Each structure stands twice: as structure tokens, then as C-alpha cells.
């Protein structure tokens, strides 16, 4: 896994609470909507952490997506976006 992916997995685990991820391995294919079932309040917390760590605007990133893209958004998709916005 890339450095960003490792760090992103840690951020997600902080947002959701580490004991809820027991048995859920976060991979690039893990989706936020269906696999992690991110609750709306957790999405807000995730957006805050991404802004803090990477200066990345999650809301702006999602604003460009249609409903199927949002449903399919995976940890890998977000990691790639973070990497490209740093480059």
C-alpha cells in the first residue's frame, strides 16, 4: 500500500472507531457508502481530517460526482485524488 493509503486507513479507523473495523480489512476497493456504511456525521468528520492532513476538499471532490460515482467511491479513489492534488 502507498503511504497515503496507509495514512488514509488510519484516518478512517479514527473516524469510525477502531473496534468497528475489526474483521474489515481496508483495501483500495473498500467503498465508503456500502462497505464502510459511513454515517453522515462521520463523513463530516472525515472531511475535517482530510482538510487538516492534506488540505483536500472532500465536499468539492464529491460535488463533481454523479450518484453512481458516489456509490462506487472507494478508499483507493480517494487516495489517488489525494496523491494527485499533492503532485
Amino acid at each position, binding site marked *: 500500500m502507498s503511504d497515503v493509503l496507509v495514512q488514509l486507513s488510519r484516518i478512517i479507523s479514527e473516524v*469510525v472507531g477502531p473496534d*468497528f473495523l475489526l474483521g474489515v480489512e481496508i483495501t483500495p476497493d473498500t467503498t465508503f457508502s456500502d462497505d464502510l*456504511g*459511513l454515517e453522515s456525521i462521520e463523513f463530516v468528520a472525515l472531511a475535517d481530517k482530510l482538510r487538516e492532513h492534506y488540505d483536500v476538499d472532500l465536499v468539492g471532490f464529491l*460535488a463533481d*460526482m454523479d*450518484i453512481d460515482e*458516489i456509490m462506487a467511491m472507494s478508499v483507493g479513489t480517494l487516495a489517488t485524488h489525494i496523491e494527485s492534488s499533492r503532485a
Partner: protein
Amino acid sequence: MSRYLFVVPPLVGHINPTVSVGAELVRRGHTVAWAGHQGTSAPLLPRDAVVFPALPDAAAASIAAARTEWLGLRGIGVFKFFWESFLIPLGHAMLPGVASAVESFRPDVVVADQQALAGPVAASAAGVPWVTSASTPGELLDPLRDLPKVSSWVSDKLTSFAGFDARFSPALVLVFSSRLLVPGSFPEHYVFIGPALGDRPCETPFPWDWLDSRRRVLVSLGTLNGAAGGRFFSSVVEAVTSLDVQVVLVSPVPVSAPQHVLVVDRVPQLSLMPHLDAVVTHGGHNTVCEALAHGLPLVVAPIRDDQPLIASSVTDCGAGIRLRYQRVRAPEIRDALERVLKDPSYAAAAGRVRDSFAAAGGAPTAADHLEAVVA
């Protein structure tokens, strides 16, 4: 005197608010009727209410089956399913019945629930003015503000079904909440009337003798979500086992519980409210408003749909604590419940909402505005 036709979806929380408004119109000498699923609507309405069948049982059953699938979904998949497999198919299924109700009842105004899209379509086709009944302020809170592509996807769905945005009447939008709970600026024809709780028939029995002098808490996930509530209910039971309170837990599935927890599948919720000290809920708008109308503080664990927004309204005004439905465990529930019971600020905030509801005017205010549509 005028004729009003309420068009309602097969959802308890969306039918209930129309009962009070309908009764007020009748008291003023108007004629009212409903169009919807007869089996769902009739038990909630007055015995002599006229209900035009606008949703065949087979269609209602297939929508109920879809709902079972919907209970298993998470994230934005819930939202997609809501539009594609519930709201639009429901609109199609109700349209013939609503159109024939409009033709035979000849209403002066159609009062269409925001989730009964057939109402505005049938009314427009017949040249009858239609107004919106927003039983929850969910759509007004603009959940898609930050997702323009999803927002235009919804608009496309509405346009292909109705040809216009059937969620919001250009003449009158009745909102069953108050400006204290729903801040923000809205057009002048959006009228906030409060929850309108009066005149609901209720024949659900309750063992009133069971209540003693301890403080009492109601736990309910509403009429739709309770079936999937097993884990949450177990956590609640664990949370309250060591608390000196009485708990009424509404669950359609069996839950094993100690003696101070009464597990029942139905309650006369509104009659129970004056006997309670706090309510634990998923954030269904009806339950939240019924609790706040009685000045009761809340613990809200929103599951889906507009519930996260309703939960935010509650915490923003200070009347409750929000929990994460999927993740929450017993100690967190116990802590939240103890806080809303012990810290008077929550009940004080709930009391302010209660006062704002009373000031909003309820069914008489709704009736004033509905009369003005005809005048």
C-alpha cells in the same frame, strides 16, 4: 364552502399530520376526503372519513417488499433506491386512482403530501390548484446542496414523471415544524404550522397500571425501521439494565429484557407522551415532534433518509444528544440517556421548541391558509 382532497402515501408519518388539518376544515364546514392506500390510511383517519382507493393492494405489497430490501442498504444507495424504487414507482401506481378521485370528488384544492407525487400531477391535469403538505422538513433542508450532479439527477426524475417539481407547490407549502427547528430563509408561501397533533383517533391499548413513580423513557424506531432494530434494541436494554427508570420499548421483534423494560409492538404514542421524561428515537420526524411538543428531551440515533438532518436540528437547538445508530454501544446510550435526564438544559431547550410549536398555530393556521388558496 370548499372541497379539499388530501393525497397521501402509504406511510403513517405522512398521513397523521393530515388528520388534524382535515378535522379543522370539517369543523369550519368544508368537505374533505383522502386518496391513498385504503388499508394503511383508514385506521389512522376518523371512522367516517371518505378514502378514495388510490393504491391497489398488490402495488402496496410490492412497495412494502421493496422496503424490506431498502432496510438492508447503506450510504447513498439508500437515497438512490428511495427515488428509483419507491417514490417514482409509487407516483405511477397512485396516478390512476388519484386522477379518478379528483374526477369524482371535484376538489377545489388538492393537498398533496411531498411523497405522493401523483397528487400534483393529477391536480394539474384537471386544472385544480394543489398545495404541498411537507410532513417532514427534510426536503426544505436541501440535503443535496453540496451534490449538484445528484440534485440534477433528482430533478430529471421529477421532470420525467411530473414535468415539473412536484415536491413544492408554487401556491402554498405547509410545513409541520417551526422556524426554531428549521432556521433559514424560505419563500413567503412556505408556512410553518407546527406538528398539528390533534384529532387523531387512537385505539391502541396500553397497560397504564404498569407505570410507577420512576422516571420513564420511550424507545422507538418508528413504524418502518423497527423490524431491523434488533442490535440497537439489545444495546438499549443493556444500557438501561442498571438505571432506575422505566422503559417502554416499541419493537416488532421479540427482545429479552428485565422487568423495568416493557417490550410492546405498538403503543398509543401520543397518549403516552405526557407520562414520559425522555425519548430515544431514530429521528423520524413524527416521533421527534411529538416528543418536543411535550417538552421531552431526546436521544437521537438517525438511520437513513431525512433522519440525520432531523437529528442535527434537534442537537442544534439543544434539545437532545445524537448517537451513531450503526456503531453505538450500551455505555454510550446509558451516558446519553443519563445526561438528557439529569441536565435540565435539554428539557429547557425542548420546552422552547414546544412553545414555538404552540405559537406556530397548528391546524387552524393551516386551515386559514388553505381557505385563502380558494378565496
